[in-house]
């Protein structure tokens, strides 16, 4: 498994893309997290227009065996959610870094401890 170099990562296993021209970043969960969950069968995502807080729960991902909270890696306003994942949660397993993205957020604040791909590799190696 390889974690894309251009993304940054939270210790709770979310990834965050760089901001686009409108200051909007995309959030998803890592392949490591998707593998640990098993088949995702239900995704509850934050509402468009709501504010998410870094390190706070903003939804849930349910798999065959368990339910896990979804944490936002940054603070900001949700500008879009991935309706494809709501309709077909297995995208989180099959394309965690691409078609399985979860939501987009206009970042107003981000914690200092987001990890680089290499740092996240080390974080999950233990």
């Amino acid at each position, binding site marked *: 498994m390889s974690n894309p170099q251009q993304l940054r990562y939270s210790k709770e296993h979310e990834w965050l893309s760089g901001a686009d021209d409108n200051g909007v970043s995309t959030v998803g969960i890592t392949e490591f997290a998707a593998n640990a969950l*098993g088949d995702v069968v*239900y995704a509850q995502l934050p509402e468009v227009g709501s504010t998410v807080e870094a390190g706070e729960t903003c939804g849930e991902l*349910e798999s*065959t065996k368990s*339910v896990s909270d979804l944490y936002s890696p940054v603070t900001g306003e949700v500008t879009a959610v991935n309706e494809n994942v709501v309709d077909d949660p297995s995208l989180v397993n099959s394309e965690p870094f691409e078609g399985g993205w979860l939501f987009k957020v206009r970042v107003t604040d981000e914690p200092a401890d987001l990890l680089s791909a290499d740092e996240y590799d080390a974080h999950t190696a233990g």
Partner: protein
Amino acid sequence: MSSTELRHTALDAVHRSLGATMTDFAGWDMPLRYGSERDEHVAVRTKAGLFDLSHMGEITVTGPEAADFLNMALVGNIASIGVGRARYTMIVQADGGILDDLIVYRLAETEYMVVANASNAQVVLDALDERSGGLDVEVRDDRDAYALIAVQGPASPGILKSLTDADLDGLKYYAGLPGTVAGVPALIARTGYTGEDGFELFVKPEHAVELWQALTKAGEGVGLVPCGLSCRDTLRLEAGMPLYGHELNTSLTPFDAGLGRVVKFEKEGDFVGRAALVEAAARAEQNPPRVLVGLVAEGRRVPRAGYSVVAGGEVIGEVTSGAPSPTLGKPIAMAYVDAAHAAPGTEGVGVDIRGTHEPFEVVALPFYKRQK
């Protein structure tokens, strides 16, 4: 529990080479899944799946009084099992509380194999030891004498036939016969815990890898895949089969669990729990405390064991097992609910899923029954 204390099956290296996600199950390091548990589930329903079940607890009972002893120690009529046949039964406490559910195979006139759940094997062994006092029987702990490999699914007879000369067509559901599979001596049993046709192969641990590889090769062309305990759980849940620690425990009698049919009052002689079970049977008939039902979700959130079943704002029961059902495409659950809300089609029943009351349909069990 640290990993050094976990027990490993004879197939441990095989699971690791297949990239299995492992889990601690009753003190055993067992495969949870190899890839997608949903794909594994579907393979068993439509083709075939290969399971390592070596954690199950085998106990051999031999001796001239073996049949009478098991009739006294268990709730079923064990003496009436024909040689080469098997039966689903239970062992209860004197108060009728379920200690475990079991499959008993009669291997010979005076030899039985009792297969207990991994989590209860020691409890069952201790109870059988204690109950055997004064009788001409030997109760032997054979947990380390067997590895157990299951092949389950509609393609399983074809796969097995290519590896054995044993008369599989003559081997009925819940029967077992000694034979040779892929050159390995095995007890071949037509049993399982998936709701599909299938076989369980009890072999010596030193033969397990060889047999697993032969089955894998024989199943290559027909879609056989290795399967973990995660899909075993959803398969048995769809088939409405109870799991000890979820639908069964020491505070429930077989009658409370809707499984009173396994208790054979008509058999000869007394048996442990008889008096208490007579009362439990009458109570279940006249004034059942709670009834085990099936629930099917109208939404997509999944009920889990321990969640409350609700109706009209009141708690009327508790979920014992829940999972997304690959076959139904919806979340399902088994739950004990008050008798007033137990009839299939009862309106207004929901499950409290982390604070939200989600609507559920009450249905009769099982959720899934294979077409024969």
